[in-house]
């Protein structure tokens, strides 16, 4: 086969047509060969993006049959156990999608799995960005967009989960209502405005429907678009390595390699989600029966992304205050309001502010395009791990009944364990992570100063044994060396500069000194200059060993 020498007419014609009208040539010229660096962790965001596309496609399919109505009908479909049962049209139409539309069950399950992968993918992606410091200047805005998308997605999932109006989704809706009505001052109004009256009313499914299929997906779509445009304009970060600097991007070009690889990765994501939707049953609504506020199925669990709120509700002590005693005002159900708002608020607000707080503490106003290795910013990494531990404990105790059943511990003890762990685990995670980071930095420094263990054991003249170390490969060394000290604010000697006076300024300086700096300095010497690090090897042996 001969290779292509000129652009085929079929492509050149339309391309010329478009360029004469849009003048897009210069844009295309600049971008066709845009470079994308490669690392497995850069795929996490793509997983989230592709599952969102799948959600749009499968969700649209579902809308063709789904009836967002709470009007009651008597079921007369093919699913025998529910024949003759009174239920909402929403539930009946979800059953219809499952049993009377060919491929309907498949698409429903794909939609639900894609929702889990979408949110899980976003969480993993956000963690990657956090731990590598990829949110730093100039990418703070994209980080903020990401935080907003993630928060909206939780509500998108919540509204979707409520649509089928089965007993399980109704339990979730009931909890949502209990939280909404408990909000101080506005709770009652919100309840009546959301439900059109008292719970459950006749309106909530149709309202959730328009929120679920139009309002929130539209917002997410707009934000995702902005997210991608910013990513495109600011270019991807990359890990330090040979030839990779803060001023360049090293990788494969968009056309053809990255394009084809992304296409393949979309298909792969779709395949995995389709496989899950086919072989792993999810939300078998026909087993739960129609919703009734008087019934509940034991062991009901929300989707994983809501479980941390569930856990917070479960381990919260029974606190409630009445500000004005018996007057008809002033009731604040802390046992509802705190778990519903505080963990989510801490995490979301904390995420949103982190880039700015870090910049304030370090005074670092430079652009950063090299991804940090997590160990090289130990405090940040430890904070991240503490948040994961906090979230993880709440998530775990979303199943405190299952825990106590499995481990034969009574609920009382389990719940108290949760109450303690929610504070202890983050502190512990922080301390442990900090140690590990420093340990890893030390081992990096050791590799750089006296090479990697070669696996060859040498017998010393004095009878001892020692392993021969060889210098690290060039690319590994570049990877390890590609780190710089975290900036620290200069205290300016006797007279602190303006921003560092007063109690807040002093705190800022203290935090800066703790957060920044180089914890474990890496030697500038090359492994072969053995004499710089005599302490790393048995007395006087290092020169002989590494040669």
């Amino acid at each position, binding site marked *: 086969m001969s290779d292509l020498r000129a*652009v085929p007419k079929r492509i050149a014609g339309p391309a010329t047509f478009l*360029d004469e009208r849009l003048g897009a040539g*210069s844009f295309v010229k*600049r971008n066709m*060969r845009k*470079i994308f660096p490669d690392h497995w962790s850069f795929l996490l965001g793509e997983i989230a993006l592709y599952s969102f596309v799948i959600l749009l496609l499968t969700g649209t399919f579902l809308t063709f049959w789904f009836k967002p109505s709470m009007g*009651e009908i008597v079921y007369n479909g093919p*699913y*025998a156990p529910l024949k003759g049962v*009174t239920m909402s049209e929403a539930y009946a139409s979800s059953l219809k999608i499952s049993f*009377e*539309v*060919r491929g*309907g*069950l498949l698409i429903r399950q794909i939609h639900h799995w894609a929702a889990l992968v979408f949110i899980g993918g976003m969480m993993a992606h956000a963690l990657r960005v956090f731990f590598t410091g990829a949110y730093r200047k100039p990418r703070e805005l994209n980080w903020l967009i990401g935080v907003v998308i993630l928060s909206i997605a939780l509500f998108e999932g919540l509204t979707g989960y409520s649509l089928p109006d089965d007993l399980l989704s109704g339990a979730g809706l009931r*909890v949502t*209502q*209990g939280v909404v*009505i408990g909000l101080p001052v506005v*709770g*009652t*109004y919100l309840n*009546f*405005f959301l439900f*059109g009256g*008292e*719970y*459950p*009313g006749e*309106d909530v499914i149709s309202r959730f429907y328009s929120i679920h299929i139009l309002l929130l997906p539209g917002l997410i779509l707009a934000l995702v678009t902005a997210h991608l445009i910013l990513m495109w304009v600011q*270019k991807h970060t990359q890990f330090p390595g040979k030839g990779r*600097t*803060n*001023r360049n*991007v*090293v*990788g494969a070009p968009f056309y*053809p390699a990255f394009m084809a*690889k992304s296409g*393949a990765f979309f*298909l792969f994501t*779709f395949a995995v989600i*389709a496989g899950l939707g*086919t072989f792993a049953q999810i939300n078998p609504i026909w087993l739960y029966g129609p919703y*009734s*506020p008087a019934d*509940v199925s*034991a062991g009901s669990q929300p989707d994983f992304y809501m479980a941390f709120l569930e856990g917070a509700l*479960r381990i919260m002590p*029974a606190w409630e205050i*009445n500000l004005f005693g018996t007057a*008809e*005002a002033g*009731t*604040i*159900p802390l*046992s*509802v309001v705190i778990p519903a708002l505080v963990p989510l608020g801490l995490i979301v607000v904390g995420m949103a502010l982190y880039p700015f707080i870090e910049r304030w503490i370090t005074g670092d106003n430079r652009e*950063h395009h090299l991804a940090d290795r997590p160990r090289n910013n130990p405090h940040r990494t430890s904070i991240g791990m503490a948040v994961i531990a906090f979230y993880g404990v709440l998530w775990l105790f979303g199943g405190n*009944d299952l825990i106590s059943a499995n481990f034969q511990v009574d609920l009382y003890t389990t719940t108290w364990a949760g109450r303690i762990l929610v504070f202890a685990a983050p502190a512990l995670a922080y301390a442990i992570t900090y140690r590990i980071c420093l340990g890893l930095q030390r081992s990096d420094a050791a590799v750089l100063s006296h090479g990697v263990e070669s696996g060859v054991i040498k017998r010393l003249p004095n009878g001892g044994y020692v392993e021969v170390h060889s210098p690290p490969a060039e690319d590994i060394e570049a990877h390890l060396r590609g780190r710089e000290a975290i900036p620290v604010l200069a205290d300016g000697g006797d007279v602190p500069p303006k921003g560092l006076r007063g109690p807040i300024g002093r705190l800022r300086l203290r935090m800066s000194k703790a957060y920044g700096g180089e914890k474990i300095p890496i030697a500038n010497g090359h492994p072969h200059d053995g004499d710089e690090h005599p302490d790393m090897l048995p007395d006087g042996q290092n020169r002989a060993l590494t040669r």
Partner: protein
Amino acid sequence: MTDNEHETGQPERRTPPRVIGTPLSDPLTGSLPEPLPGAETAGDDHDGDPAVPRAVPQDERKARKAEKIAALCFMLTFAALVAFLVAYVRFQVGGLSATGASHIALGGALTLALLALASGIVIWVRQIMPKYEMVQQRHPMASSADVRAEIAATFVSGAAESGIVKRRLLRRTLLLAAAPLGLAPLVLLRDLDSTGAPVAQLHKRLAHTVWGEKAKEGKPLRLVVEGTGQPIRAADFNSPGGILSVVPEGYEHDLNVLAKATVILIKFRPEEFKPGTNLNWTHDGIVAYSKICTHVGCPAALYEQTTHHILCPCHQSTFDAADGAKVVFGPAARPLPQLPIGVDEQGYLIALGDFPTPVGPSYWERGDAEARVRENGGHS
């Protein structure tokens, strides 16, 4: 796409056509005087350094083998998609097993098709396309000082031309006009609440249930079994430890009523009661509590006979049914309200009135209703 002479006139337009494997020319090269703050410059050495590999072609023999494997994958996709179409026509849905067969056939074929297509493309990218390691330069995000200064100047002169700064009347009335514009859409949302009640009165509805209303003929409402609608003769509900889920007669299918008025009925031996229970509101050892959990409203549906504990499955709030359903564990802060019950002349259980306190989750206007009841000597 052939036009290379653009009005922007940036320097890279004049660079010769690029060959695969060479770094991209950058449109902004040289246009920004100041160096990237904090950037290292060492890496620039690699730019144009022929030692750094750029696009390394694959070994042709291996590529030819990979082509065959990729082709096989694409054929598999084709076959799987044909199978998908066949399965769509052949398998009908309906009952559980028929739907299951169709589901597995369609989903299996789709999964296989996608998986094979993805694998084929991956093989193509990895083993047929060259290995790329190309370099592109970055440049600071900020525009140059000149550009910013020009924008600032344009902004100022534009504002001055428009008169918005000088003409205070214009500016202020414009702001005045805009304020209610933002309010209008909010006002339009008022009818989201379809009760039509005055906003300040909304919370009053939360405090009452249908148990307080007399049935149509003016007689008190009977308690009927949830699901069957059977009225309950007190004499028949006589085994201690027994429990029933109960709803108001005539409202068996009204979800809005059930969400507040569902009750659990428990039969005790009289000596088992503790002081928290209002004995005047029991009948012959039968006590009725709201089934709607005071935490966030799940039905507190589980009952443990030996301990007399009512357990809510949602967040495990536990109430002592012998002791006025006071909270013994969990996040619920208040006891389940007790419903005053008695019997009518035929011996069926009836409600003697409404719950003394609001049922279900707490809300701002609830206040300390329990204390209110105590002050009023047991009445709401």
